[in-house]
């Protein structure tokens, strides 16, 4: 029984990291239709930002979260403004362009900071462990879980309860009609992309104490996060949450029964089959085309 609970908790922990990374991707893909292959690099930038703030400014991880969000969001804003907005009606090309941007960011970091592994300290207040359902779990993992849910909540509020969110939803439905009502679509898109990038930066900063920080750390995340978004369904934030935890539990469970490689292969295969039969994702209602 203990082992079972331990598995569930491991799955939740994997799931919360997946959710953190996937949230920004989901916003960008769901609202703008852009497959952002540079997303992993935004995660990496966030992790490096955490390292820089800590090493050069002596800021703790928790204190630097807001500046990290702003820094990576600024990167995202610039990239949307000067690269992606030029590719308005070429969705396949955005994959290529964002991939190129990702390579540039990776190389720029490698050239300026170096490719050695960097380490970020756990916040001292969260470095102990606590009791959850009778088993001992690191406090930081619990914190990650809470943080991922909180960020999801904030994003949901932003999308559904603010003017910017309403404008964005209007643009998603019909860009030209929205524009004729005086909504500046370009500006809203740039802000959306910046917000998604900022979220990725936060994700990178938050996972940085658990994993080592390196220029190519983002590559693994972007594939996983993408699978979460596809499984959850485009334009469904709640679906993203559900699929993040489903995938977390699934890969945790299969990895326990078989091994990591088999787990990864089975999850990928399942997603391939899913795309074929339900391209709109598990958690979206069918809409009229």
């Amino acid at each position, binding site marked *: 029984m203990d082992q079972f609970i331990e598995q569930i908790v491991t799955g939740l922990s994997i799931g919360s990291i997946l959710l953190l990374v996937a949230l920004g991707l989901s916003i960008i893909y769901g609202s703008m239709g852009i*497959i952002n292959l540079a997303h992993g690099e935004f995660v990496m930038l966030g992790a490096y930002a955490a390292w820089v703030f800590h090493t050069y400014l002596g800021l703790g991880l928790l204190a630097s979260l807001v500046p990290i969000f702003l820094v990576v969001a600024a990167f995202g804003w610039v990239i949307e403004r000067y*690269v992606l907005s*030029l*590719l308005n009606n*070429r*969705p*396949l*090309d955005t*994959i*290529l*362009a964002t*991939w*190129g*941007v*990702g*390579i*540039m960011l990776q*190389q*720029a970091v*490698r*050239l300026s900071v170096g490719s050695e592994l960097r380490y970020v300290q756990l916040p001292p207040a969260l470095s102990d462990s606590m009791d959850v359902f009778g088993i001992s779990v690191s406090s930081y993992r619990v914190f990650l879980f809470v943080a991922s849910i909180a960020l999801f909540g904030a994003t949901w509020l932003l999308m559904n309860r603010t003017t910017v969110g309403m404008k964005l939803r209007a643009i998603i439905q019909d860009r030209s009609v929205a524009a004729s009502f005086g909504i500046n679509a370009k500006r809203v898109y740039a802000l959306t992309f910046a917000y998604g990038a900022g979220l990725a930066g936060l994700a990178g900063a938050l996972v940085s104490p658990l994993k080592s920080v390196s220029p190519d750390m983002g*590559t693994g995340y972007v*594939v996983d996060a*993408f*699978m979460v978004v*596809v499984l959850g369904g485009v334009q469904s934030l709640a679906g993203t949450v559900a699929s993040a935890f489903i995938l977390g539990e699934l890969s945790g469970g299969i990895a326990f029964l078989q*091994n990591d*490689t*088999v787990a*990864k*292969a089975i999850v*990928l*295969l399942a*997603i*391939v089959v899913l*795309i*074929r*039969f339900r*391209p709109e994702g598990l958690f979206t209602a069918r809409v009229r085309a």
Partner: protein
Amino acid sequence: MPSNAPHSSGLQRLIAQLAPLLIVCAIVFALPVLLNNDFLLNKVARYLVLGILTISLGLSWGFGGILNLGQAMSFGLGSYAMAMALKLKTVPVHTGASGLPDFMVWNNVQHLPWFWEPFRSLTFAIAAGLIVPALVAAALGWFMFRGRVTGVYVSIITLATMVVINLVIIDQQSYTGGFNGITDLAQLEIFGVAFDAYGRATYYLVASCVLLSLLVAFAFTRTKAGLIVQAIRDHESRVRYFGYDVALYQIFVFALSAAIAGLAGMLYTVVMEFASPTFLGVQLSLSVVVWCAVGGRQSLVGAFLGAVLVAGMQGALSESAAFLETWTLVMGALFVLVVLFLPKGLAGLAQVVWRWIVQRRQAAGRGVAQGVGQTEGST
């Protein structure tokens, strides 16, 4: 008023279209005369093989509109088929019963697995290197295109499938050599000709395959099926309303492209003298997309040159680590610029420049003719 454009016959057009292809192939065949260096020749042969791989992507992406992010899967399958046959031809130092490959002995495999058995025949291996990728692609194509999966989702499925196969190959170490791949291979020998990786024979084999793949791909784009494939790329549902079986054509071009990639994979094993899971890795697969986009996805020769130039540049700079790092950064920027401003790649740029030159010459010619006419009129 007669049209000013020269009215060319079909044959003339065909020659004009074939000219760049033949010129490039002539240069490829002439290179060994200029490059009297076996090491360099081997390197060039490597880039040519990557060029063939990129031609195969150009066929499915540029002409079929199918952005296959897992093109290296077919490449890897071809490369393993060749490596398996060449491995069985070696005389290993540590053999178990019945000449087992060394890595199987290390992994305590007692008998040659059934799927290795037929690879004792080189003919079978070469056929498998073409047919297995084509069949896998046809099955995957059937799975996707019968379900009318399009665009981005095709890219995700192909990428994910490749990663799965890559993971399986790494995981099944006792049958595939795992992470290390298959190394220490025998030399390829066909009809008594030995293909040493650093020899002229190998280079000419690769060069002939370049010519062959370019011609096959070019011929396909000019058949009726090839035209329908391009029509599907431009407007899928319109072709469907005409009554064509869209999925069938997509499956065909997808499988043909996979077979060419399989050919490239087999050659790569001969040139590199090993097969490795990185041959069907994400890194290579995405690089192929870059080469294709830079060279020009809608031009077969362009795609080929894109691969040879970019991969060659990268290889030349890889002697120094600092250079390579900077080059990768420049490469990323170049790629973004090409995607933004040259969606048809360098081949598209060359076309624009060529047309501009022709127009200017025509304009100049007309100007002279008019001038002559006026002087004649005045006298």
